[in-house]
């Protein structure tokens, strides 16, 4: 589900639109709030509170009973609901495969392409040290 948290609401919605979805209802209407983000002293020591982030959350239930939860950074309630819907759908025998294949897999590929490009740009700024040799001339 991490893939969905990295996608835009519009991208998830567009891919879901191509599927015939079962009926579902909101268990928790989208709601915005805060999560306190924690770090660790020295990177690996005791935790401390770094600062908060806005988070949106939602929960849905399919007519067939599967319950899905959606959480995402930011204040886009619709995105939280779409993540919750996908979370419920992947648990369903009838829709799990289609959601993985038509929604999550292409978004994962898109995310990986973006990350590969960013990693390549970063790699170009890596320092290659060489040693100046004191020569005769």
């Amino acid at each position, binding site marked *: 589900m991490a893939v969905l948290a990295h996608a835009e609401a519009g991208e998830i919605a567009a891919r879901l639109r191509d599927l015939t979805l079962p009926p579902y209802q909101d268990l928790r209407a989208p709601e915005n709030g805060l999560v306190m*983000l924690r770090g660790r*002293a020295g990177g690996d*020591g005791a935790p*401390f509170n770094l*600062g908060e982030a806005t*988070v949106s959350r939602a929960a849905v239930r399919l007519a067939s009973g599967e319950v899905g939860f959606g959480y995402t*950074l930011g204040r886009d309630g619709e995105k939280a609901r779409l993540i919750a819907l996908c979370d419920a759908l992947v648990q369903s025998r009838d829709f799990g495969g289609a959601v993985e294949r038509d929604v999550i897999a292409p978004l994962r590929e898109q995310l990986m392409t973006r990350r590969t490009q960013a990693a390549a740009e970063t790699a170009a700024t890596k320092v290659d*040290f060489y040693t100046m040799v004191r020569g005769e001339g």
Partner: protein
Amino acid sequence: MYVAVKGGERAIENAHRLLAHKRRGVQSVPEVTLDQISEQLGLAVDRVMSEGSLYDRELASLAIKQARGDLIEAIFLVRAFRATMPRFGASEPVDTGAMRVQRRVSSTFKDIPGGQILGPTFDYTHRLLDPSLAEGYVPEAPATAEASAAPTPRVTDILGRDGLIEPSPQAEDGASVGDLTREPLNFPADRDLRLQNLARGDEGFLLAMGYSTQRGYGRNHPFAGEIRFGEVEVEFVAEDAGFAVPLGSIELTECQMVNQFKGSATEAPCFTRGYGLAFGQSERKTMSMALVDRALRARELGEEVRAPAQDEEFVMSHSDNVQATGFVEHLKLPHYVDFQSELGLLRKLRQEFADAQAPDAMKEAAE
């Protein structure tokens, strides 16, 4: 003493109207958008998120726009906003060792696993104003190279393997994490509260404090063991779901300072650490934070507390720019009654002074 003052409503209303007009500026100039602020003034957004203590680029951009670019005012707006939102809980501590690094440098080792990665930096620029940026500048596409799959371990983890640096203190089982947004500050304060305070502290204040330690006010012989900037994943144990859910990723800057050693009859000498962590790309902030964090550890490391940067009450009570600006700027609010009483007292004292001088003057004149 504050007293209610009536009147001025119309002046206030019109002043705010004028402010809105001034904020917009000349209307023939296009209005700046939140996307433009977020994309093109990204480091200002990072600072407002760090010191506003709220990770939300869009809100920070809005705050900068509303504050006409006054970053402390923007930080104030963000802090006020966060106070209106419910809190769902706290995230799992982020793993900076697993960061997707966009920049990572060490001044202690040339050859670190994963390498020295400069990333987008002002370092090595000539600080000459660039007239080509004034309008219509289209940058070249970034260069690319094959990324290595090698991990980029924290430099302090490498030093730690040989015991050359003190291990990070671990939390005791079930220990709660101090939160100064929930409980009032008490001294002495533990390191979790100190780090939280520094993380939201004013960059200028921390810079000056950190600089003072380098100039000899609480020396701690620092090396920038590592500075890294990049993306980390955030996870949150959601009560309703009953497991850790991914929230997405955030950008962080981390600084590990490696400082002078400690040792004793029973403990082998080793380097000590100072730590800095902040939202976004905030290098100056995290370096300053790491210097001050190390200075504030004087008490636990058995060092004499002599300099301002080592005094946690001094540092922690003055690092917050929203608190500081509130107290400094309240001086411009009406203090008419206070001032009248001071004025009355001063007049009385001056009269007494004049009366005391008078007999001497008369005596001198008579002689």
